[in-house]
């Protein structure tokens, strides 16, 4: 469904991605693991054009675009089929939880208000926050904010959701609720690409694991392969096997 080939990205002299290939099939939960500075966040951001990759191609639903030449309209069109969950939640602070979830429907997709409200409410129920619909982000805990962000992501029925370290900004005791929501999305067959440091989540939930370091994919495979029989010594060391 989504395939990227040969993604490279440099910030000035620093080469962050050195030619990465990645593919995600419908219903996959692909996790990207790796130490800080390995390029995993840059990779996922490039895939949604939050960073502009220097080179490479992206194929979505059978149509291939070149990162170097893709236009604004195509980017906007692709973004409407995807969703992104940020480490820092990035909720719209001037909107209530339900308004955060609705704006992508009403303003961006011209869904009528009543229908959007219904879908937004359902999305909030889905993440267990039906009773927080009229709360502003400032009135919610970190875990609740991230669940609103997930509701905002699922409300638009994306074909894939990108998660960029969704629990890294949370207190350890707050990560559980967020991970539980992600597990249940995975169980429902949602296609997800997840950059994470949550090893047990990666091990239990993913259909495919990718270990990155130094801007390249060191190793990839099923969770069993990566966690139990890693080929690379580096992977083994990182996972402390």
């Amino acid at each position, binding site marked *: 469904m989504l395939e990227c080939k040969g993604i490279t990205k440099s910030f000035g002299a620093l080469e962050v991605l050195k030619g990465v290939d990645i593919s995600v099939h419908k219903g996959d939960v692909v996790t990207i693991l790796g130490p800080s500075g390995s390029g995993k966040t840059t990779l996922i951001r490039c895939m949604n054009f939050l960073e502009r990759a220097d080179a490479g191609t992206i194929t979505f639903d059978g149509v291939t675009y070149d990162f170097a030449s893709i236009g604004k309209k195509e980017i906007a069109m692709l973004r409407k089929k995807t969703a992104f969950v940020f480490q820092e939640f990035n909720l719209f*602070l*001037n909107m209530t939880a339900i308004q955060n979830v609705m*704006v*992508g429907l009403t303003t961006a997709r011209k869904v009528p208000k009543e229908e959007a409200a219904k879908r937004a409410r359902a999305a909030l129920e889905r993440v267990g926050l039906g009773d927080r619909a009229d709360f502003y982000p*400032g009135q919610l805990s970190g875990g609740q904010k991230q669940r609103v962000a997930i509701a*905002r992501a699922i409300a638009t029925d994306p074909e894939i959701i990108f998660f960029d370290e969704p629990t890294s900004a949370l207190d350890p005791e707050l990560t559980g609720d967020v991970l539980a929501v992600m597990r249940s999305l995975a169980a429902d067959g949602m296609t997800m690409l997840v950059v994470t440091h949550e090893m047990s989540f990666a091990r239990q939930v993913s259909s495919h694991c990718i270990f990155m370091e130094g801007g390249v994919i060191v190793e990839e495979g099923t969770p069993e392969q990566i966690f139990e029989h890693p080929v690379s010594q580096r992977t083994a060391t990182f996972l402390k096997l």
Partner: protein
Amino acid sequence: MSTLELMADSFLKILLPGIRMTIPLTIIAFSIALVIALLVAMIQYAHVKVLSEICRFYIWVVRGTPLLVQLYVVFFGLPDLGIIIDPFPAAVIVFSINEGAYCAETIRGAMEAVPKGQMEAGYCVGLNYWQIMFKVVLPQAFRSAFPALSNSLISMTKDTSLAANITVVEMMMATNRIIARVYRPLPLYIEVGIIYLIISTALTALQRAGEKRLRRYEEAEVKIHAGV
């Protein structure tokens, strides 16, 4: 005439020019200033080439020269080039341009204080630049700029007294005219000062009420942090 009688007798003679000139001048000029400020702030926020350079130049010149000089240039200077503008419109032009430069910086600062991640989130939920601007960035920027903008408005209300220098018959000019007749400067200047004070006080009250309305979601945040 006793001092009190004089002040009572002059009250309307000072207040009426205030209602006819000072307040309309303030309202019109400040409204135009806000439009200018918003445009300039948005151009600078988006780093539009050439236009942002022009905006920077505009702010540099306006903030770096006295308001009185600007009034004189437009009212006494431009006629040299054959451009003759009546006192009131000349004052409106100068005050709008002057205030616009200050407010532009206030608004730009407030826009830049809105966390950039919300812009990214906006793109990711499918909004375009203008939708993010008007639904996300500007509402938040306006809320945080509101106290500073109110301050500018109060400050400008008092600065309109400078328009007397270009023959606008506002409160200061009216006061000077009475003084020229009766030669009792102290009570009359105090009186006009009091009238300015009343107007400023009213504006301050409006500002408080406005801030209270705008602060809903920020207050909520404070409560959470205080553990209430």
